[in-house]
């Protein structure tokens, strides 16, 4: 039986971690993830889980310990934010390269400088090409659900890749809201026991992890990893279908919110997508055919499916809570436009950077974007393609 709970995003993820009951957690607290790692440490101290909690001296060590523990043959979870994520950077491709399915929550926070503790997607967007599966979450419920699914996805024998689950710092991590939790037994049954591949602790079958592979084998190793990530899409959908049976909540590669007959649409990730969907409801009441495409699975990026969902839209705003300085648009912009490439009559596209460092994104801001899109749809004139939303210039 599901139980309704009132929790912050951090509480919800900590609760999912308790239910997953991993063998090892190696984590280092950092705002806004601190509450999460503290709460889990409390579970360990109170004997609520069987986890070995490794109190490391930095995030670089946290990820190193996670990779080592995973290679040893254990189910491993961790969590971080912003600068902590950046300090893990060296180890992120090692987790994916050694195919150790570490599951990590990233509570999105802006990069310095200037110092800021609030939400930008700089961390996970920066690490999008580290070879990890990336799942984004609108709210506490999605973060909780993604965590449980992530275990199944990453550990699957056809995948064997680390997974990061992102949620917005403060906006979600520190806000109490309503969510439904599974009971412990259902989670245990859903994720199943951990199955190791080449565990280092198996002394009867000694193996080597992280050995040298040069001109003769490095490319084969990377192709194998690339194929595993691309092929994980099917498994992600399979796990989502099974999860729906259990919870009634459906997850896909992205959420298609009223796109089918839409003329204008916004592509937007995480909590701000919630605001956009509320605005769409308002616009629909006024007869404006608006929709939202909310990516959930960012790696592997579902190009074909997104192209299919967006191909008949007249004007699209692709919005990111990060900038890819000096690039031809923000990360999601370049992904989505490359998905649309080759269409004979492609939608008009514009690109916004919004909400950096926790800048509030409000109902009226989103209304403004749809207004501009409606104008573009009418006139066919795009105007300036790249903009910082609401910035004082």
């Amino acid at each position, binding site marked *: 039986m599901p139980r309704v709970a*009132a929790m912050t995003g951090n509480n919800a993820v900590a609760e999912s971690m308790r239910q997953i009951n991993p063998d090892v957690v190696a984590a280092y607290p950092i705002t806004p993830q601190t509450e999460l790692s503290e709460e889990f440490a409390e579970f360990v101290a109170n004997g609520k889980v069987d986890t070995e909690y490794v109190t490391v001296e930095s995030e670089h060590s946290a990820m190193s310990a996670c990779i080592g523990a995973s290679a040893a043959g254990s189910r491993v979870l961790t969590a971080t934010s912003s600068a902590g994520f950046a300090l893990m950077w060296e180890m992120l491709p090692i987790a994916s390269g050694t195919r150790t399915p570490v599951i990590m929550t990233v509570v999105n926070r802006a990069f310095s400088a200037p110092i800021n503790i609030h939400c930008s997607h700089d961390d996970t967007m920066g690490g999008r090409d580290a070879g990890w599966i990336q799942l984004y979450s609108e709210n506490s419920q999605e973060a909780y659900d993604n965590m449980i699914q992530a275990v199944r996805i990453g550990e699957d024998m056809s995948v064997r890749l680390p997974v990061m689950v992102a949620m917005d710092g403060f*906006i*979600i991590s520190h806000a109490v809201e*309503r969510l439904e939790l599974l009971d412990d037994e259902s989670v245990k049954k859903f994720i199943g026991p951990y199955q190791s591949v080449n565990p280092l602790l198996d002394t009867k079958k000694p193996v080597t992890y992280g050995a040298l592979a040069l001109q003769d084998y490095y490319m084969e190793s990377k192709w194998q990893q690339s194929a595993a990530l691309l092929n994980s899409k099917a498994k992600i959908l399979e796990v989502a279908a099974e999860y729906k049976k259990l919870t009634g909540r459906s997850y896909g590669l992205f959420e298609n919110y009223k796109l089918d007959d839409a003329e204008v649409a916004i592509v937007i990730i995480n909590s701000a997508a919630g*605001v956009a969907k509320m605005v769409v409801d308002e616009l629909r009441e006024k007869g404006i055919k608006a929709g939202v495409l909310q990516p959930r699975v960012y790696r592997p990026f579902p190009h074909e499916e997104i192209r299919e969902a967006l191909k008949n839209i007249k004007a699209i705003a692709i919005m990111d809570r990060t900038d890819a300085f000096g690039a031809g648009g923000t990360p999601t912009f370049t992904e989505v436009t490359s998905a649309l490439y080759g269409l004979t009559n492609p939608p008009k596209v514009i690109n916004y950077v919004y909400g950096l460092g926790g800048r509030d*994104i*409000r109902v009226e801001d989103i209304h403004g974007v749809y207004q501009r899109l409606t104008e573009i749809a009418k006139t066919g004139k795009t105007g300036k393609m790249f903009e910082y939303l609401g910035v004082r210039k």
Partner: protein
Amino acid sequence: MTDVTEIRWHARGGQGTMLAARTLARAAINQGKYAQGMPEFGPERMGAPIRAYNRVSDENFSLYCAVVNPRVVVVLDPTLIGPVDVIDGLTKDGVVIVNTAESPEKMKEKLNIENGKVFTVDATGISIKELGRPMPNTPILGALIKTVPLITLDALLDDIKHTFSEKFSPKVVEANINAIKKGYNEVKGAN
């Protein structure tokens, strides 16, 4: 559009606002409602002006942004009136609840509002009496749910009993419950 009651809290760091907003959200959720309770974190320390928000509804909603047009404003520290525009964006049928020993009429004048109702409660006085220190967050919660009946008093007290018991001694829990009841009973209003 989904009918959502939006609340904005004005206080100073250290007055327990975050706890109050989260408690209200939790109690509402436990009563089968959809609710949010979130602080607005800035660089604030003890004493700095802060804000927190609540949203409560019978239906699901996904507004992950600050409250700009509150139907309810709770002022935990009356010295903020003036330096902070506490009634900014208040809806026409809005309600303002102020922690003060002064009369609601006088407060209405001070706030300079024409539309909307003003309620006052001496939450600081109550907390000093009940808790022995100025923690106006729980008594003003009592006043809030009396004036804006989002949840019942019993629901709030149940939640306080349950969650406060995890962190505080029975004596402190009891004192907070008394403080809430007093806040509930002593709030005064002016139309």
